Each structure stands twice: as C-alpha cells, then as structure tokens.
C-alpha cells in the first residue's frame, strides 16, 4: 500500500529554532550578548506565527541510467540517482510554515530590517527542524536515505511544479509556485527521501 498523508503540528513546542543555524544564516560568528534579545525575539516570532504543515506521498521509483522515474515525473539528475541508490520506493513531501510567516516578514521589513532579517533566519531554521520532524516520522522503522531537495545540485528546479502538483500542495497547504519557480509561502521545502530495499 502506498500512502498519501498530511501532517500538521498542533503542538509547535515540539519544534525548536536552532540558534546556531539561524546565526549561521545571518553570518554571525558569535553573539557577544548584544544580539541575544534580537535572536530571542526572532525565535519567539517564528514560533508564534508559523503553522507548520506537510503533505507527502510514497511512490515506487525506477532508476535507469541518469534518470529516476517517480511515476508522476521523470528526473534526470546524476546526484539524485546516486542519492537513491539501492531504493525502489521514495517519499516525496512538501513542508511549509504557512503564509503568516510571509506576512510577518513584510510587516517587520517596514519596522526594522534587523528584526526582519533575524526573523527570516529563525524561520529558515524552523522549517529545517520541521523537515527533520517530518523526515523522522516518515523514516520511522525504515532504512532511508538523506533527503534531497528539488533545485539542489542537478535536480532541476522545474520539477517543483510536478511535485507540488502530485501533492495537491496548492489545495492542501496553500503552497503555490511563481512563474520563476519560487514557492510561496517562502518558508517552504520540498524533498525526496529514498527508502532502501
């Protein structure tokens, strides 16, 4: 049986903003305490405005040469082929923090660029934590490969459309694609997780 499912996190306290990672996004090497308040605020804001949600499907995959066939899309990517070595199934998922984070960023950008930048970095870290959570749930009791995102390496970003389409991400998550293949809400990730035979 193949499953399609949604995950919403009603208890957001299960997620954490990884401060080290947020600082890395901001190019901050160390916090001499002058940034603590700002970073705290960014984390609080990120946790309070986000509503993390994800959709996934599990599909059979077939690798032929440099191409991976997911049934709903064929991806030509050497790195993805390498990543999915030894797998005959994969999860494809999309996870998002929701559009409120975009609105909050726009709001902060009118008040303070410092707060806006820190908030954005906190959200980037938060969506990664959420992806870890989703990944953890999906990979439970299975031997899985590290997740691989569309747009990374030679995995052409145009496949974002195929992925969002099969997941019905627009209807289920409110995730849309712009003409230049950017996802909105901005803090959204799609990825493939190979399941080992």
């Amino acid at each position: 049986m193949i499953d399609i499912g949604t995950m919403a996190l009603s208890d957001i306290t299960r997620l954490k903003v990884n401060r080290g990672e947020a600082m890395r996004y901001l190019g901050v090497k160390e916090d001499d305490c002058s940034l603590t308040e700002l970073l705290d605020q960014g984390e609080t804001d990120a946790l309070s405005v986000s509503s993390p949600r994800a959709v996934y499907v599990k599909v059979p995959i077939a690798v032929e040469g440099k191409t991976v066939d997911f049934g709903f899309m064929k991806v030509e990517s050497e790195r993805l082929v390498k990543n999915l070595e030894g797998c005959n199934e994969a999860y494809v998922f999309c996870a998002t923090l929701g559009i409120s984070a975009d609105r909050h960023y726009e709001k902060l950008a009118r008040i303070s660029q410092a707060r806006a930048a820190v908030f954005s970095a906190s959200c980037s870290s938060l969506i990664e934590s959420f992806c870890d959570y989703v990944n953890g749930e999906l990979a439970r009791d299975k031997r899985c490969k590290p997740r691989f995102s569309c747009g990374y390496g030679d995995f052409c970003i145009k496949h974002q459309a195929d992925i969002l389409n099969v997941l019905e991400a627009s209807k289920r998550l409110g995730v849309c694609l712009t003409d230049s293949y950017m996802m909105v809400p901005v803090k959204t990730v799609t990825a493939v997780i190979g399941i080992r035979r």
Partner: protein
Amino acid sequence: MDILSYVKKGFVFFDGGMGTQLQARGMKAGECPEMWNITNPQAITEIHRAYFKAGASIATTNTFGANPLKIDNTEAVVASAVENAKRAKFAENQFVALDIGPTGKLLKPLGDLDFEDAYNAFSVTVKAGANAGCDLIIIETMNDPYEMKAAVLAAKENSSLPIFATFVLDEKGKTVTGCDIPAMVAMLEGLGVDALGVNCSLGAEELEKFVPELVKCSSIPVIVNPNAGMPCVHNGKTCYDSTPEKFASACVEIAKMGARLLGGCCGTTPEHIEKLTRALSGCKPLPVTQKNDTVVSSYSHACSFGDKVVLIGERINPTGKSKLKAALRENNLDYLVSEAIGQEEKGADMLDVNVGLPEINEGEMLVSVIKEIQAVSALPLQIDTSDPIALEGAMRIYNGKPLVNSVNGKQKSMDSVLPLVKKYGGVVIALTLDESGIPSSAEGRVEIAKRIIERAKEYGIDKKDIIVDPLCLTVSSDKNAPLVTLKSIELLKSMGVKTSLGISNVSFGLPSRDYVNSVFFAHALSKGLDAVIMNPYSFEMMKVYYAHNALMGIDDMCGDYINFASNSQSVTIAAEVGEITLERAILKGLKKDAKEITANLLKENAPLDIVNNHIIPALDTVGDNYEKGKTFLPQLLMSAETATVAFEVVKEKIKGEGETNKGEIILATVKGDIHDIGKNIVKVILQNYGFRVHDLGKDVPPKNVLDYAREHSIKLIGLSALMTTTVPSMEETIKLVKAELPDTKFMVGGAVLNKEYAEMIGADNYSKDAMESVRYAQQFFKT
C-alpha cells in the same frame, strides 16, 4: 423552475467527485482531466448522468482547472464541458453549474499573480460557460478570499447567472491563508452571491463542527460539499476512507444544523450521493434566516459593530500632518504602512485610509496604499475618499468587506456612493448633512439619516450596512453642539441604527484638546456609540476606552484594562536613560537612548555638529567593524536603524535645511523575484550613509526600471536577484537600460551571483554585501 426558486423549496443536492470517476474510467496520473471533455465526451456525460440518477440536482462541469493560466483553448474546453453536462439531463429540475476552481497561483503582493490578471482568467471561463448555456456558476475550493473575490467579480460582471461560492477549511476552521468563517461570509454576502459554504479538504464528519458558525453568520443558503473522508492511495490511485453510509449519516447531521445544499467533493461517488439523497428524502431544511449583524472584514477576520465600541485609527490622513503629506508626495508608502502597523499595535480595531492631496492622483494612490497595508495588517480598513472613482478602484481591490467613509444626504453623494456599496459590498458611514448643510437639531440630523437609509434600501442595501455619523461641531463656537450630537446618538440608537463619530472636531481651537475629546468620548459611549474615529496614540482616549469596557462588564476580569495600565507604566520606567554616549547607543543599537541623547545634545550643539561629530563617526566604526568581521549583519542593521532615529531627531530641528543627499540610487528586486530581503538590507544601509534611495520594490519589470531612471535622471541602479531562474531578468534589465541610457551604472547582488557572473550579465559592480554597495556608491558619487 430556475435554480434559485428551486433552492427556496427545500434541500438541493450537488453531485460528487469527478477525479476518482475519471480515474475509474482510465484517466492516467498526470493527464489533464479537463481535456477529457473533448477527447472522451461520452465518459463525462456518463458520470454526470450517474449523479443525476443518484438524485443530484446540480451537475458540476468538469472545468475545475479550465482557465487560461492552466490550460490552452479554455473556451473550447468549457463549451464542451457544459454541453457534456447538459446532455446528461433527463428530468425536470436538473441544473448545470459551471465549475470554477482556483488558478493555483497566489495573488500579489505575497505571490506573483495580479488581482486583475486573476479576474481576467476567470472572466474567460465565465463567458465561455455562460455562452454555452450553463444554469449557474459554482466557484469552489478557494483558499484565499482575495482570489475568491476576483472570481466572484468575474462571474458578476460577465454573466447574469446565479453565483454559488464555497471555500476550503483546515482542521482549525480557517482557510490556509488564515481567513475565518465570519470574514469569508461577510465578503461573499457583500458581493451578493446567492449561496455560500465549504467544500473539500475534510470529510463530512470533520466538517460538521464548523457548520453551526457558517449558518449563524449567513443570511443566504449554506452549501456543504465534503470529501469522502481522508485520502490514501491504493495501487497508485487515491482513495478515501469514508463509506457511502458513513458519509450520508454525517451529512444528515450537517443538514439538521441548517445546511440546505449538500453534495460531495473528492472521493465521493454516485453511491455516496444516492445514500445522501435517500437519507434526506421527505425532510425539510431549516429556514434561511436574515441576520442583522453589522460586519466588515479583512483577509483574516471580521469586525462586528454592536458589542464593544470599534476603534478606527485616524492617522492615515494627510489633513494637518506634514510628514504624511510629504510621504504621499514622495510616494513613500513605507511611512504609511508603518503608521498602519503602529496603530494596530496601539489597539486600533480598524484603520481609516485617506490619501486625498490635490497634487497627487488619489485613485491610483488609494489603490497602492490599500494593497500595501492589507498585505501586512490584518485590520479591516475604512476607505475614506470623496472621489467616487477612487472609491470604486479601492473597493474593487480591497481584500474583504470594507467600511466606506462616507455617503451623506446630498442627492449627488447618494447617487454615486450607494451603487458602489451595493456592487462591491460594504458598510457605509452616513453623514447627517445635505444640500442645506448640517441641521442644528438632533431631530433634523435623524431625518437626514432616515432619508439615506430609505434611499439605500431602494438600492438593495440593508439598514444593518449603514452606520450613521451624526457629526460633531466645535464646542468653542457653539456651546450646545456636543449636546445635540449626544442626543442624536440616543435617537438613532432607539431606531436600531448603528452610530459612529469622529471625536476630535469637538475640541477644535481649544488648548489640551485630548482632555475635552476623551470626556466627550466617555459621554458618547454612555449613549451607546458603536464606533469612533480617533488617534490610538492618544493616551487620554485609550484610558477612557479601557476603563469604560472594564466598568460596563465587557472586559472579562478587567484583563484588557490591567494589561493596558501595566504597559503604560513600563513605558515611563524604560524612558529613564543611563549614562551612555550617542556613539555607544548607535554601536549597541539602543534606539530609545539614541533619541533622548540626541535631543539632549541639541540643546547645546549645532545640529550638523551632532551629525558630523557623533553620528557619522559611530557609523564609520560600525562599518569598519563589519568589514573586519568584528560585528555582523544584525548589529550593522541595528546600528543603522539607531542612527536613523538620531537623524530623525536632528532633522526635526533643522526642518529640511542642510539635509544630506550624497546621491540618488534606484534599488529593485528584478522581475520574477519576490524575495526582497537583500534589497531591503542594502536600502537601509545606503540611506544611513546619506544616499537617497528610490525603492521600486520586488518583481519589477525591466521597463519600469528604465522609465523611472529616465524620468528621475538617476545614474546608479542596484538590482537584486535570489534565484538562478531570475538572473536572466537581471541581465535583461541591465541590457535594456544600458541600450537607452548608456551612462547608467549597475551594482548587483544576490545569493546566486558572484563577481564573474555579474560581469557576464553586464553589471558594473558585484556587491557581496550591503557595505560593498555603500563603498561602490561612495566611489561612484566620489563622496
């Protein structure tokens, strides 16, 4: 019988899912379902007929994704789809609904689809469906009220068909864009749809709990079209877990709560619909009742008048505000938006938006400002203009049901404003004045109010959608003026009419106006005032507001009052400043301290000395530290913002004289790119170093950059792009501008760029961070 008469008679049943039926007939994953209308018309007709046989009265055409943004030859597809459904009819009272689904794109400013482009796409489908002879239009599976509005307007303006509209709720009872049920109902009823409700996303059992609220808010028939439970996939096909029996029994519960139109969405089959229609056969639905709530809405929530007085922030209005006037003249929308955010934080429930200035195009400006504000503020807006053209433009693009300020008893005003309120939906403020001026008696004002209410009724606008402002004249010129106003409120209230007041006029010409305003406000509240247009920054007014609510039993446990009172104390304590210098305040990003210290320094120092001896050296230190890797981006930004605060204080003193302008620079995030974080950072740092930045925003077409550069003779342009997919727009912009204005220079930045890449696309400078753009600008202008 037409569909609307049929709905009046009893339950009406929609059909069920199309997708699973198509899959059962051999449609493959990835195939376009709408094309089946042309390639397999017989199969489509079969599906519709199966639903009619199961007892459905409405067949929904197979046109969910049939719009020009998703498919080619929309017209032909829609025409065949309607034809296929019409062919399936075999009895009386079977109707064909043109199905309109979402575009799959998010609207601007958060997404990249323009409101009018969405409208145009929907219009193509509507025209084709109406031409082909469908009986009604069903707009469904909408997540975003803004897109819903574009679709409803397209349906209204391109056909005279009945319009049904349903949206999608998540498990918390909101759309994924954050819109709640009362807000969606307010907007849809305002737009004049004929039935509304929910579909998709959840099964009947999960949707059940949201139906009471839907029925409670709605004065028109309610539709509920759930999925057949939750999805799973078997052998590559999506299935749903609710059996026809379970589905039907949950739908019966939903019907008992007051839903009148029922059917199915994803995963439901003719069997589900048959079980449903059988279960309800012979049953009568609850009557549809008229609700009398006065409600406006934003993209997220509704604001209703009647319980607690509604605070309408008055600050976005140029009258008597030189900074706002300047912001409007310079097209500095950030300033207006920050006024919106500030008032929201101070506790306003709504915001008045007035941008009328003789030297600007009010219509265009009102639309731009409202688009900007509604992107960041969740508060419903009051559109304040005396120009009917500007009003229409603004009501059209407003994301919700607005409050309109205002109509009055003059024939001309009623004739121009009321039709717009009817068409777009809204609550309107009615001022009690007419061709003969403002009556001196309360009775005279009530007469005008009655006349406006009568006239509105002729246009089909209900009394609940009119809030009367009985006007308040100046007490210093007429000692009885406030008493007349208070009496008018009393009389209007006794007629069941909602009231609003712009308070501050009462104190015109008097010293310490806030004292008079706040006491008058308290008196008006005691008469039952429903809304007030006021300054949320006024401590005296807010004191009255919170104390009144606490005393009148509308502030549970006095929670809001206590919160207000304790916060006002903490402000006083935080204002005490320790022994620090302005340099240190800037280095550490201490904005409040910087403000006070600068004010103190101004007592003994020349303004320009403060800039040259304190602010600039501090900024240089911060910039050096950043470039040496001793401090980091957030500190750089905090220092920049703190320096801005200090500059503002100095500017106040010199009132524009000796203002520094080291050069004019255009900044833009290129076409196709909607991430503007990098551009925003560069902007604030450049401004700090004395450059005047013209921020064209994000997703900016090359031609706009060219036109702006030419019009304002600006020679330095900064462009940002975040994605490899948008770098070509950057190249295109540079080529276009350089072809027309060869001496223009470009500095570029963004995550995917580097020095070589920048050179390749014809840029003159690659700025790896904000400070590098400052250095390049300094070199360019030789400062």
